[in-house]
């Protein structure tokens, strides 16, 4: 009997290669390619009066300089608005190269293609642009005030105003025995993957083919964009994702200007061309996220049960909206979390500012949503003087209430917001046990006796994962017995080669070691969506499972003929099909692959066994009717709606009474992503997510000045936590409530670690300090200021309310 592979903490097969420097990233490809550098706007808002290229044209080693004037046809049109939600009434996108106006520091104005990046940068430095300055709109306050406009034709700087809800929130709040109002905010951050963006293209003039390698989260999306913009047939463009050094959302946006300009230049020049983004460019031209101002009005009863919520927020969308309203829509829907809110009204405005575009970054609007909801519940607990966990428990959706529909709300995919499964009370019980919630007051007393300040915080979340529309899987068994698997979505470090191989090993009955997985290669999988929204395991995992089942059916059919037994008497273990109870009567998958493909030509011993002289029933065609040559299975998975993962984070912090430094004493995560394919990979996702969450809670912010200059566009000043800043240990407990929506019961796990982190820290710091926390992230300097302010106002609560 084959050991079951799903559920085992198998070590990632890709790691040995990646950690020993054997990875092949975009910049490792095509040495000798011409290199592209980009002239980026140094101004946040300006009209381009003139671009003088004179000093560049005769520079040795320069092959081409392009500005907007060199773009024709679809390339001269604005970049696509990828997700045209109907309420995005004033969607705007930039041009591949700025036309007439720039709207953020970093917007691409011109590109130079040269022998190498050094020369290309020399040339960029020689381009002279004359600007007419326009007043920059920086920050949500300025955008709301709308004294100046980012886009002349967008009144009030409002890209979209969206309103949803159910019940009668206003009425419920008005009638509620208790009412609270909160005004809170979350600052900007960014994904900042270790590898920035990168694209390499080669145009084969003889074959009329464009080969592109891009560090992207969607191979098919970039391919379609290139074909459309360059006027090529889709079949002429191949897009391959090499190893990708992290994405975290920023690489799902496409096409980036450079993803079009590189193949554009490669075709024009007849030479391979490469663009590799550097770190400074990444800060000022790749997407940011998170910035929101939130206003919450809530009515509740004496027990802390929420009766109605009115949630208004203002979302800083940056200069353009290529990725539509995904981030604010997720905030507006996932605010509801694991709670039964009987009356809900939400309205948001997506606002233009003269800053880098805002698109999903791991969590994608959920960290803000959870922050809003959990700040609100903490405020209710403080107001009523009851335990924070009790308030949450009293509002939980109960295990027997699934599937649970939140009124008529629709989710980010336009589908009804219906939770498929979960058990939130049990999650809470596990979280309290894991963090030691009940023992904390004793610990606080002990610490206080030593002059120390400690606090505990908790935050719950529900995460819609595995969003559609579909993914595909293709499983091919080669004559060697090796199993080749392809799925179109991309990999940027998740361990897909391991997790998907585990699924195929189990479903097919192959040996794990024999399964090889390829992702994000349009030559193998031309139909695909991409890797985002914690969807890879749910979508491609399910598709691959279905494809493996089809391959297994065919293998059993062929084996039944070959062994002259009934299919139902057969089983497949370790790549060998055998008769149940008679292991001697068997045939391996490789041999079945030979038999599945009747050959005219024998080129080796294996193929001799498969020529038409040997294989098949002489009374039938060599390939029987209804069959296809080859031993393979192909299928797609397209779900009715998203599946909803859930979890709770709890953190204990200590704040230094003198320096206001914030130390993490304990971090606990209870997590439910349905069936675990590989617990080790899930825990790795949680570790990485919590690390980014700590960044978002305590360190990372985008420091724009009034003129729209990003003051901390480097890893020296944009503070990603080092390993020394994240918890030495993260306590993790899993809960498994399988999803009824897909064949394996999987829910997504990729983003969970980052979602409730800022909310949990806000709760813990507030608990330690007795000072209301209304803005995250928070630095020691800011906490020190809050202390001074509280002391001056006399608003410090001496006792934390657990």
């Amino acid at each position, binding site marked *: 009997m084959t050991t079951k592979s799903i559920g085992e903490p198998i070590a990632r097969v890709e790691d040995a290669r990646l950690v020993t420097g054997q990875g092949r990233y975009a910049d490792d490809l095509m040495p000798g390619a011409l290199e592209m550098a980009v002239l980026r706007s140094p101004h946040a808002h300006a009209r381009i009066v003139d671009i003088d290229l004179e000093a560049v044209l005769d520079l040795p080693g320069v092959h081409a300089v392009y500005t907007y004037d060199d773009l024709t046809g679809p390339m001269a049109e604005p970049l696509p608005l990828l997700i045209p939600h109907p309420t995005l009434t004033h969607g705007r996108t930039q041009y591949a190269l700025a036309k007439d106006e720039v709207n953020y520091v970093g917007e691409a104005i011109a590109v130079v293609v040269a022998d190498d990046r050094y020369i290309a940068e020399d040339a960029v430095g020689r381009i002279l642009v004359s600007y007419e300055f326009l007043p920059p709109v920086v920050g949500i306050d300025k955008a709301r005030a709308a004294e100046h406009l980012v886009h002349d034709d967008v009144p009030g700087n409002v890209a979209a105003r969206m309103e949803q809800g159910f019940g009668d929130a206003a009425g419920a709040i008005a009638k509620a025995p208790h009412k609270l109002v909160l005004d809170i905010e979350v600052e900007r951050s960014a994904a900042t993957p270790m590898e920035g963006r990168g694209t390499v293209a080669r145009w084969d003039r003889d074959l009329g083919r464009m080969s592109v390698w891009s560090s992207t989260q969607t191979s098919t999306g970039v391919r379609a964009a290139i074909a459309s913009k360059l006027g090529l047939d889709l079949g002429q463009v191949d897009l391959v994702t090499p190893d990708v050094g992290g994405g975290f959302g920023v690489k799902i946006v496409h096409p980036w200007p450079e993803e079009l300009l590189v193949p554009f230049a490669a075709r024009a020049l007849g030479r391979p061309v490469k663009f590799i983004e550097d770190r400074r460019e990444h800060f000022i031209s790749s997407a940011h996220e998170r910035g929101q101002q939130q206003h919450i009005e809530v009515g509740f009863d004496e027990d802390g049960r929420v009766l109605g919520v009115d949630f208004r927020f203002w979302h800083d969308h940056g200069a353009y909206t290529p990725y539509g309203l995904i981030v604010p829509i997720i905030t507006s829907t996932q605010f509801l979390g694991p709670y039964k809110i009987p009356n809900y009204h939400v309205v948001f405005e997506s606002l233009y500012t003269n800053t880098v575009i805002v698109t999903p970054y791991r969590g994608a609007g959920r960290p803000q949503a959870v922050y809003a909801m959990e700040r609100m519940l903490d405020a209710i607990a403080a107001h009523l003087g009851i335990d924070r966990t009790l308030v949450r428990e009293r509002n939980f959706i109960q295990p027997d209430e699934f599937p649970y529909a939140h009124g008529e709300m629709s989710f980010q995919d336009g589908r009804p917001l219906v939770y498929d499964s979960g058990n939130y009370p049990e999650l809470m019980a596990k979280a309290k046990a894991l963090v030691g919630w009940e023992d904390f007051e004793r610990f606080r007393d002990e610490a206080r006796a030593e002059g120390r300040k400690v606090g505990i915080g908790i935050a719950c979340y529900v995460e819609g994962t595995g969003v559609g529309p579909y993914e595909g899987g293709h499983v091919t068994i080669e004559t060697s017995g090796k199993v080749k698997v392809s799925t179109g979505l991309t990999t940027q470090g998740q361990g897909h080669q391991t997790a998907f191989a585990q699924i195929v090993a189990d479903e097919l009955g192959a040996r794990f070691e024999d399964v090889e997985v390829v992702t994000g290669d349009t030559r193998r999988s031309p139909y695909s969506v991409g890797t985002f929204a914690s969807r890879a395991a749910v979508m491609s995992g399910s598709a691959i499972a279905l494809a493996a089942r089809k391959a297994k059916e065919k293998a059993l059919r062929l084996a039944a003929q070959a062994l002259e037994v009934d299919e139902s008497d057969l089983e497949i273990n370790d790549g060998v099909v055998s008769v149940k109870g008679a292991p001697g009567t068997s045939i391996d998958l490789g041999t079945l692959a030979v038999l599945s493909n009747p050959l005219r030509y024998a080129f080796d011993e294996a193929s001799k066994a498969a020529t038409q002289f040997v294989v098949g029933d002489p009374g039938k065609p060599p390939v029987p009717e209804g069959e296809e040559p080859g031993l393979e299975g192909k299928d797609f998975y397209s779900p009715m709606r998203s599946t909803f993962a859930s979890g709770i984070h709890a953190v204990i912090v200590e704040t230094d009474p003198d*320096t206001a430094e914030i130390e993490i004493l304990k971090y606990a995560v209870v997590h439910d992503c349905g069936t675990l394919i590989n617990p080790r990979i899930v825990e790795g996702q949680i570790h990485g997510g919590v690390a980014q969450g700590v960044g978002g809670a305590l360190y990372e912010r985008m420091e724009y000045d009034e003129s729209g200059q990003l*003051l*901390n566009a480097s890893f020296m000043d944009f*503070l990603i936590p080092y390993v020394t800043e994240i918890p030495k240990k993260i306590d993790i407990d899993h809960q498994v409530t399988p999803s009824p929506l897909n064949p394996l019961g999987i829910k997504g796990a990729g983003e969970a670690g980052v979602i409730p982190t800022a909310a949990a820290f806000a709760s813990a710091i507030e608990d330690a300090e007795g000072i209301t926390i209304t803005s995250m992230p928070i*630095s*020691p*300097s800011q906490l020190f200021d809050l202390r001074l302010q509280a002391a001056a106002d006399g608003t410090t609560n001496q006792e934390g309310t657990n």
Partner: protein
Amino acid sequence: MKPAPFGYRRPGSLAEALTAYADASDAKIGAGGQSLIPLLSMRLASVAELIDINGIEELSRITVSEDGVRFGATVRHSDLLAHEQVAAVQPMIPAALHHVAHATIRNRGTTVGSIVHADASGEMPTVFALLDGRLTVQSVRGTRELAAPELFIGPLETSLAADEIATEVFLPALAPRHGVAFDEIARRHGDYALVGVGAVVGLDADGAIASVRAGYVSVSEVPTVVDLGEPLVGHRGEITDDALRAAGELALSHLEPEADIHATAHYRAQLVRVLTGRVVRAAYDDAVARSNRSEGTPSNARS
């Protein structure tokens, strides 16, 4: 992030380097490259010629004597940290070096280079000033020695002439009955300090405080040393909180904490107060411990 074109020269002897530097216009000396190379790569600075002194054997030496520690211009921070006798002669050196960036940067960056970079948010310029170090600079015109007051003339600015190369630094040994401590608070481990403080406390023969000097990082335009003796001299046993508070206020009167994106000015001032207290107390404890050790085993004192 690629530098503009520049010339590169790697002399094999100091004489060759001095001549090349004197003859060049717009040249820079490169050793560890931890500041200059990023500036060049980000095109925030440019040079006509980079003179790489890593090939000059005599600049890589560390000499430890009873008098102190002498090290050449290509000695890495990590070389000093790894040297067995440095800590015994001048414990402030490793105490501060542990706070200099991260291991990978300490493996490349040079201590002399850090000192002459004259960044008041670097640890080693302050240590140089606090310990009354002496810098040797050479040119084709001759050799001279500089102490901190003559060396640091402005933010990131030294009194080195255009043809002078910093060749070595001497940091005197810790005197008997003295103790040291260094601490800093940074946003992340290894970042530039929001505030850093190093202190040297001297005791008299009776064990009372005879002198207290503290050097400050990131709260002044040039590396600044403050004599904190006034509120502290004469103390024995546990130093009172009041005395340490007074020392903190005294220090602040010599410093100019400023706001940046990581901290407000008054938060930095608070850190000056807190760290002054912590570091002076630790340096005093260190002085007491060293005095006790040397009195307990006089024959072994600084062998």
